[in-house]
């Protein structure tokens, strides 16, 4: 089947408006007769559920947590972009579009990104109307900050808890619809398969995680909003339950899986400290607005610090290598995430890492504290302030901006980041790959949609900061409600979908058999044992830098882990009760298949792009020497994989990317 992106014709700035003017609508009275299932209640699923219910559809929403409010989106810290140009610093729809396409290393679909930029301003209006308490300046207007990869201040934020507040906004909109009976909420339910009838998605099989009961749910359309799959690496900044299951299950039923190898490695995370570790903690990228990143210039200083003979604060400015400022003078510490991550790894690989494992660089607030302190002393008219006074005044400003992040760091590392620089290292954070969708956000299964982090569409090979929240809410509030209506207009006479059909029967049987296998398999190893083993292969061989030999090995090793898993996995407890080990087993089984496809996709992509440094593809000379080398001639396409049984047998379909409005250029942040 040829991939049809269904991007509307016409100039880019008119596409979305023209599209909306010409789609088929469902009459409000008919919407009452149409059911929609939404899997996931993060920003994408929550906003979609609320809006579809508002429009009049009957929504059934599912989440594995005990409340929609706890979806992984709750953890997002830094902010959400919108081209409001409130700061008058030259922002516009076009500039947000341009930054996003460039930041994504020219591997996203232009039309989708333009639409995203176009609706972004409206997201802020919507959220403010819902009572989201964004930060304000003293005049009562909305405040902004800046994120990596851009030269304007377009990021809206609510302290370091932006995701929390946006999700609570979507959750409150859901609550209103739950109260009206328009959303039926299924908490602690996990979707374990999609049901396809006559080629169309018509329902799901879900497990009630409290009782273990397997349930059938039907609908006229199914929307997957299940978030990202970064946990394929075991260690990541994702929530423990984040998984690929929903996306993988629809993949097995016919949805193509796009760019699985595009994973964002975030530069500012707390470094790993031991084998027991269960997750990595992100320190928001907004810290790079004020923090300067460095490692010692001299190896002897590195050794002295590692052995505790010197403290970072003992080193003078001249003895420090502010490598981002040195290499990228135009953007400095605010280069995009992939650039910052690779640069940190480069320094650490060269031996300059500052902690015992050699995997940490410093993020230092000393200059910012002094700068703010001097400014405050002037504002408060304090003549000849002492250094201590300056420090005190400056610290108060930094605390107001990032206090909760500093506290989080101190709790974990047991060091005071106001006094000594933070230690940071890159970690797996966000997956730009995901289920392939067309312009309508529909997958290759008719009637099955995919939104938010779970799809592949808007971020290319690298996501700029504060754009995931934007995409989740754009999809849910403003895009899907239109595009799904166009599809559902064909269903107004269908009537209720029965769950009493052979298709539901078969899907349920398959789900039950797998669960029964797990609880009856008397293996010897825990689920986590396999997950950690998979994670290690992924990080070592399909992580920030990769080469053909390693990726081939990874594919073989993952296959072997998978085989061992199906022989040796041990899941205590039974199927008919709350059983967290059983939940994990199902998720890891899917990660084990995805992991292999991931490596296969990375092997095919013989270019460096985004955060993915393909060792065979680097600039050898010229002003970009040492930087990642993209290959537009051969790889300006989306890799959409079709399921054929074993992950190694997946078939590649290419969606060629067209760039009509932005010139394909070497990315330079120098």
């Amino acid at each position: 089947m040829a991939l049809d992106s269904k991007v509307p014709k016409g100039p880019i700035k008119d596409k979305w408006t023209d599209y909306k003017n010409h789609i088929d609508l469902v009459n409000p009275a008919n919407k009452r007769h149409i059911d929609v299932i939404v899997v996931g209640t993060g920003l994408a699923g929550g906003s979609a559920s609320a809006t579809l219910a508002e429009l009049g559809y009957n929504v059934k929403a599912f989440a594995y947590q005990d409340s929609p409010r706890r979806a992984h989106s709750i953890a997002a810290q830094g902010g959400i972009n919108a081209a409001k140009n409130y700061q008058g610093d030259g922002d516009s729809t076009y500039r947000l579009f341009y930054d996003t396409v460039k930041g994504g290393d020219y591997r996203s679909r232009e039309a989708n990104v333009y639409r995203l930029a176009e609706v972004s301003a409206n997201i802020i209006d919507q959220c403010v109307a819902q009572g989201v308490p964004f930060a304000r300046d003293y005049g009562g207007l909305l405040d902004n900050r800046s994120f990596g990869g851009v030269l304007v201040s377009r990021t809206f934020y609510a302290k370091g808890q932006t995701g929390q507040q946006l999700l609570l906004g979507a959750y409150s909109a859901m609550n209103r619809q739950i109260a009206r009976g328009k959303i039926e909420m299924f908490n602690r339910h996990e979707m374990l398969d999609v049901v396809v009838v006559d080629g169309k998605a018509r329902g799901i099989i879900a497990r009630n995680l409290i009782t273990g009961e397997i349930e059938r749910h039907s609908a006229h359309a199914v929307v997957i909003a299940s978030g990202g799959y970064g946990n394929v690496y075991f260690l990541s900044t994702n929530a423990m339950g984040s998984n690929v299951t929903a996306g993988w299950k629809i993949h097995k039923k016919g949805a193509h899986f796009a760019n699985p190898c595009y994973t964002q490695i975030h530069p500012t995370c707390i470094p790993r400290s031991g084998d027991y570790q269960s997750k990595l903690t992100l320190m928001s990228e907004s810290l790079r607005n004020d923090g300067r990143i460095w490692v010692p210039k001299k190896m002897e200083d590195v050794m002295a610090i590692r052995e505790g003979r010197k403290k970072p604060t003992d080193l003078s400015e001249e003895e420090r290598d502010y490598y981002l400022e040195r290499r990228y003078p135009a953007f400095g510490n605010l280069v995009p995430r992939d650039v910052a991550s690779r640069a940190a790894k480069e320094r650490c690989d060269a031996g300059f890492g500052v902690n015992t494992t050699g995997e940490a660089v410093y993020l230092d607030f000393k200059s910012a504290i002094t700068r703010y302190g001097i400014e405050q002393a002037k504002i408060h008219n304090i003549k000849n302030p002492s250094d201590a006074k300056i420090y005190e005044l400056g610290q108060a400003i930094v605390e107001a901006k990032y206090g909760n992040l500093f506290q989080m760091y101190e709790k974990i590392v047991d060091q005071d980041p106001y006094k000594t620089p933070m230690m940071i290292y890159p970690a797996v954070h966000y997956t730009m790959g995901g289920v392939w969708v067309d312009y309508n956000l529909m997958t290759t299964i008719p009637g099955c949609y995919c939104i938010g982090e779970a799809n592949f569409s808007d971020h290319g090979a690298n996501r700029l900061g504060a754009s995931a929240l934007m995409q989740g809410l754009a999809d849910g509030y403003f895009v899907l409600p239109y595009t799904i209506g166009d599809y559902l207009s064909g269903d107004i006479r269908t009537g209720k979908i029965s769950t009493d059909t052979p298709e539901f029967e078969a899907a349920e049987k398959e789900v039950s058999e797998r669960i029964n296998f797990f609880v009856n398999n008397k293996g010897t190893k825990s689920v986590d044992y396999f997950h950690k083993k998979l994670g290690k292969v992924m990080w070592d061989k399909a992580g920030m830098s990769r080469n053909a030999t390693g990726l081939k090995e990874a594919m073989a090793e993952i296959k072997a882990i998978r085989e061992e898993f199906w022989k040796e996995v041990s899941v205590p407890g039974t199927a008919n009760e709350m059983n967290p080990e059983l939940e994990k087993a199902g998720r890891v089984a899917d990660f084990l298949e995805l992991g292999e496809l991931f490596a296969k996709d990375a092997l095919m992509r013989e270019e460096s792009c985004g955060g993915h440094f393909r060792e065979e593809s680097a600039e050898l000379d010229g002003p970009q020497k040492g930087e990642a080398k993209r290959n537009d001639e051969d790889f300006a396409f989306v890799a959409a994989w079709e399921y054929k049984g074993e992950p190694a047998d997946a078939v590649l379909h290419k969606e060629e990317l067209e760039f009509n409005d932005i010139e394909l250029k070497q990315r330079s942040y120098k």
Partner: protein
Amino acid sequence: MNLTLKIWRQKDASSKGQMVDYKVTEISEHMSFLEMMDVLNEQLVNSGEEPVAFDHDCREGICGMCSMYINGEAHGPDRGVTTCQLHMRMFKDGDTITIEPFRAAAFPVLKDLVVDRSSFDRIQHAGGYISVNTSGNTQDANSIPISKHAADEAMDAATCIGCGACVATCKNSSAMLFVGAKVSQYALLPQGQVEAADRVRNMVAQMDLEGFGNCTNTGACEVECPKGISLENIARMNRELMKASV
């Protein structure tokens, strides 16, 4: 560190539970409390026993899932943290640690340490929102100026993670800190004014219906709240309720 754990085990909502003793060894002081629980669970799985069920997800102190009662305190001995942010450096080699679920009539135990907090959701359904259409046809965000002070105060109230520690720690199992926080957030913002009276009335009515107790101003909730939600929010809720009743 070597530790003795006394943990509440309960098969499901209808079974009777009991405390069971476990030993864990080689616990590093850098581990989080939940990582220590992972070590125990790995040990149990390897010996074919059922691991201890507990709720958790973000492990960053923000989702509000990891509810545990540790040595008689919600989220354990540290201040201003959730269980996932509690570190083993708060304990000593040889300690005995008692771990129980949050106990309140409105939070029935589902299994081991997992409780059902859906009563909190139902309170929100009763009015924890602003009735604005999600159509996107809203006015420009800057056309509602909000003083920095009000925005910051609303944000402080909105910071509640819905963990339920306030209820678990209260001798009356009152949910007033939680409800007060939500009522306050909207009461402090101009967008929330129109429905303020109905909102507070409905939310408080639902809170009573769910079986939460009343507030007798003990203040334990504020002390145990991982997000520093202040008692002022309860006072504000009471004022709002009074306003709504006259």
